[in-house]
């Protein structure tokens, strides 16, 4: 290394794998301006618009009963869909990464389905299934159950849209880790459940957390699918994104941006958490230093 540094010293020499400086600078400048234009500016706009009429108006926008009910519904939906998808994601990853079975590639493809289908279409599927004129509509109605234009529909749509997140994060890591540690656990007398709990899960815990963070962010922010099934009933079936849309359409900009700022804050928190977790994943797979934080 010292010799290459010495060769660098005269100034105009370049490392063999380095681009000329004008290329590097223009690439950096392009990326930065792109980021500012499409990410930073909108974020700033959200907060300035929200606080345009002072903190009092901002607070009033958030604490309005309909806004509050939208927040509560969103928390409920997230509280149901994220744990469900955590369990599903772990089960699917374990099956796919550690076992051989018929139809495995089909299952992998199906897990990606919600990414491939437009959220609006996903919503429509549920309307066609559970709506009053849908396949199960009459049957549900006979039992007095309402799915579409009610909370269950919102939950269903969110679960569907967010179910790939945990599985997609965990499957590649589990596949990379192979099954040798599990085999070792079995020869040491551990049961299947103990093996999963003490060996498999701790090895993927950061990937699981990463998946949960992404799943959570998407569940809170989902608009398309939820919009189709919710019916936009104020104070009842509106989640935060739907409520923002309604306020905006009513020209109530301050309240709209105030509520939107909650989602923007969530995005920031998610980004920070994601970065921290990513570092952990990187740490535990490549570094010689072990992860010292025990689950």
């Amino acid at each position, binding site marked *: 290394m010292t010799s290459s540094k010495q060769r660098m010293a005269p100034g105009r020499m370049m490392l063999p794998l380095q681009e000329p400086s004008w290329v590097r600078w223009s690439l950096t400048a392009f990326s930065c301006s792109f980021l500012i234009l499409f990410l930073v500016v909108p974020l700033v706009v959200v907060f300035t618009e929200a606080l345009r009429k002072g903190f009092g108006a901002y607070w009033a926008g958030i604490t309005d009963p309909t806004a509050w009910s939208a927040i509560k519904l969103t928390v409920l939906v997230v509280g149901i869909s994220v744990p469900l998808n955590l369990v599903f994601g772990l089960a699917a990853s374990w099956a796919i990464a550690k076992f051989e079975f018929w139809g495995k590639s089909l299952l992998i493809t199906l897990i990606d389905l919600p990414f491939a289908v437009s959220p609006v279409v996903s919503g429509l599927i549920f309307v066609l299934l559970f709506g009053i004129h849908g396949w199960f509509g009459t049957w549900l109605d006979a039992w007095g159950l309402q799915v579409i234009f009610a909370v269950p529909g919102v939950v269903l749509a969110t679960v569907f849209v967010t179910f790939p997140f945990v599985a997609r994060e965990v499957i590649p890591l589990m596949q990379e880790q192979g099954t040798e540690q599990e085999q*070792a656990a079995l*020869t040491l*007398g551990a049961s299947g459940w103990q093996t999963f709990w003490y060996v498999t899960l701790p090895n993927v815990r950061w990937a699981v957390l990463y998946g949960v963070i992404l799943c959570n962010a998407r569940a809170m922010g989902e608009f398309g699918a939820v919009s189709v099934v919710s019916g936009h009933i104020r104070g009842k079936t509106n989640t935060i994104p739907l409520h923002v849309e309604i306020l905006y359409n009513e020209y109530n900009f301050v309240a709209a941006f105030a509520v939107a700022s909650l989602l923007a804050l969530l995005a920031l928190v998610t980004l920070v958490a994601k970065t921290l977790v990513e570092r952990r994943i990187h740490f535990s797979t490549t570094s010689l230093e072990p992860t010292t934080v025990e689950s």
Partner: protein
Amino acid sequence: MSIEVRHISKSFGNFTALRDVSLQVHDGELLALLGPSGSGKTTLLRIISGLEVPDANPDSEILFHGQSVVDRPVRHREVGFVFQHYALFRHMTVADNIGFGLRMRPRATRPSKSEIRDRVGKLLKLIQLEGFGDRFPSQLSGGQRQRVALARALAVEPKVLLLDEPFGALDAKVRQGLRTWLRRLHDEIHLTSVLVTHDQEEALEVADRVVVMNQSRIEQIGTPDEVFHHPKTPFVMEFLGQVNVFHGRVTQDKIELDDPFVNEADEHHSGSRPQAVYARPHELDIQRESTNGEGIAATVRRLHLAGPIARVLLEAENGGHVQVHMSLERFYELALQPGVAAFVVPKNGRVFDATVAAIRD
């Protein structure tokens, strides 16, 4: 505890890993399964452990101490298994790794925390890693990791120890050290052990008996001496050390050699060759003059003197190569140089005739 397997076969799709293999491991012995990759040795080991299930066959049987264990799952077979790539739990400390098997026991048979700690401490001492209990596997060298893996396997007091190429991922120097250590350890604890390896030196040095495997079958079972000095098949002869193959015959009192075989590129001939005489390099001698027209005329090509013996490579008139090993004294007596003409004379040699081939098939 003795192990016996009878008529075990195993195929993976179109690939046959084991073909009707039967084998006995005596109580307290260290047995090596030796063979090239793909010979079925690891599959056999995994079937003994229960990690792999043999093909269904009414005659097949796996017995531990005379009792069938075919229906017993891995976790109830009480085997210690050491993997080639250690398979340590990397999120656990060394001590937690070693104590894992004990912690997983059902409450009724689980030792108390302090008992586990004591047992782990003793094992750390046994593997000469006292004071390493709080480290993580990633902070250890390969040799240390494999010793931890061994301690982890021993912690549950298995009835049988199975080692799958345990030193395969380590460098030569460390291998040598661990090999000696493993043999010493075995002499201390006398645990029935099966070691899989493709390194004939390792097998011959460590094991009480060696099982040489090739192409899904057992070629020969015997003590290291037996398999090395009295190989039953050409494969065993060629796999266990260097060998020269000549056209020729062996009669009651005489070994006659013609030309060496030229095509030595494929190392492991599976079939016996007609009229082929096999001789190890140390079973040949070199003479500067031919007496009574005996010996194969050859030219000295290369000398390799860095070691306890002299290794001489000669080229016969038909282009075939001959390897001869001799004492350094004998070498200096002959005053050989590259390019010098000489005659190769057999001191010993053997043929594997058609009857042997017939038995093998």
